[in-house]
């Protein structure tokens, strides 16, 4: 239970980073992002994503456009803004730093 909780906290922390990373590979609409994140087991319920996307958009990191869909109503396609790209880069650097530090610490074995 405790481990599960810690895991979900970690996931939460990197969720924003992952969304931006996914979008850096190309524009996506919400359901695509959900599919990817679910595959990676980063989110459990879809509802988590919508407030995040809206907040990132309002922060100027994302923008969206409407695109007609063959099946059903028009879809909201999200893409990174230039500001978002800059932000993503800084997140990447921070992430790499964390990964390196964490690896260093976890690799040290007491003699």
């Amino acid at each position, binding site marked *: 239970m405790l481990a599960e909780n810690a895991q979900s906290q970690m996931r939460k922390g990197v969720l924003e980073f992952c969304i931006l990373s996914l979008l850096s590979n190309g524009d996506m609409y919400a359901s695509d992002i959900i599919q990817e994140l679910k595959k990676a087991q980063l989110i*459990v319920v879809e*509802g988590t994503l919508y*407030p995040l996307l809206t907040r990132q958009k309002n922060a100027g990191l994302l923008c969206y456009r409407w695109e007609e869909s063959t099946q*059903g*109503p028009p879809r909201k396609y999200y893409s990174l803004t230039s500001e978002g790209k800059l932000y993503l880069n800084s997140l990447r650097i921070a992430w790499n730093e964390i990964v390196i530090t964490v690896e260093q610490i976890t690799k040290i074995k007491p003699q």
Partner: protein
Amino acid sequence: MKKTVSINLNGQVFIIDEDAFNELNTYLDSIANRFANTDESAEIISDIEARIAELFLEYISASKQSITIVDVFKVIGILGKPNEFGDESHEQNKQSYNTHDEYNKKRLYRDPDNRIIGGVAAGIAAWMNIDPVIMRVLFVVSFFVFGPLLYFILWIIIPLARTPSQRLEMRGEEVNLNNIERIIREEFQQVKDSLKNLKKKENRRKIEHEFSSIFNGIARVFHLFGKIILGFFVAIFMFVFMIFIGVMTHIIPFDFFTTHCITTAPISNIFHVFISQSSSILLFWGIFLFIGTILLSIIINLLKIITGNYRRWWLINSIFTAITLIGLALIIYSTVKEATHFNISTEIKSRNDIVIQKNDTLKLVISNDQRESTQNQNTLYSINDNGDFSFSFSSNKCHFKKGNLSIYSNPELGFEQSKSDSSYIVISRRANGNNITEATDNCNKINYSFSINKSNIKLASHYSLINTKWRNQKLYATIFIPNGSSIMIERNGSTLANNLKEGQTYTMKNGKLE
């Protein structure tokens, strides 16, 4: 057969079962609640609605054209409840969502479609699932009890069903024991079904959800009992309130502009024995407003709890508080003002000499007042058809006849040894008043008749106060007899001197009658 509703989600039209609609509606409300404090609310909700539309499109096919409650549960399972969104920045907004709290919940609204006056009867009928005509008949029948008042209060309290979803909530599912039992049975069925699919992770959450609904069903039974008990209290308070209003309308002197001391409201005359017209009006209105508003607000608040209306009305609350305080102020003011009439006590003594020969025996006659003998000693209060009535308090008897107040009371009779050789009677009148003048005036208004004719003394058994207020008036009649002189009780028609026997002669010896 199920009733369906058609809804528009992100531009798509869906046919949805009514129960599924209610479920979806509460779900969307809970999301709206969670994001209520943010600017993004509308956008998040429209995104989520778009996603729901997308999922619904997957669920419908040529053979299954309507969205069922199971579909809605699936969607909720996929999208998650708002408290599972795990969004830290909204963590403080802890309005957790439990679908079954709201599930099938029926709320009381006034029905705008079937209204005759305020739609109260129609709304309650929809709530109880009975014909509105029955409700209306009940209201009309109760017209002479507290129907109009109850109707008016309910009219204020129950909100009007404005939106279609509120109208659905209004009709919703019946809240009764059968129904609760049915819901529980349905829930068990759903649990059984989903146990088969236990391996799927998503379903686990759904099972939790359904177990909670069983407890919820039980909780709802208790909830219902609670409401019945509260309803019982409302009836009691309503009854008390009506009695209070009834009594007050008999007491309050509504004829403000009459200058006459006695009002047409008979019971209020009792109070005129003690307090002035102006003070009594203030006092009655004070009591009326103070207790009336308190009772009314108790009734309103109980009904608010029962009907699930938790909105706070600042305006009405403050008006009520103000009226209560005004009532209290009136009570205090009039009481204090009247109390000042008891400020000062004075005593007026008058000495009446009895001129007799030294060895003559005094003859005392205590006359019996007709008014006392006609009145039953045990009745506290009696009234006749003309509105004349009488009542007694402590040793005083008050009579109202043709608008006039008279108070009768017994004087205190005493015998003392005279310091000189002469006999005399001292009549001492006592009364209270606001000041010396008023107190003296009150003393002088004590009517007492007695006569001295040579050795014959005749005392009335009562003194009277005609058209004066009761100001603690007292009258003492003391007969001073020289040592060794005798007094014969010729007639003792009253209880003034019980220890003296009629026809007996008593002699004053060292301050005592023997």
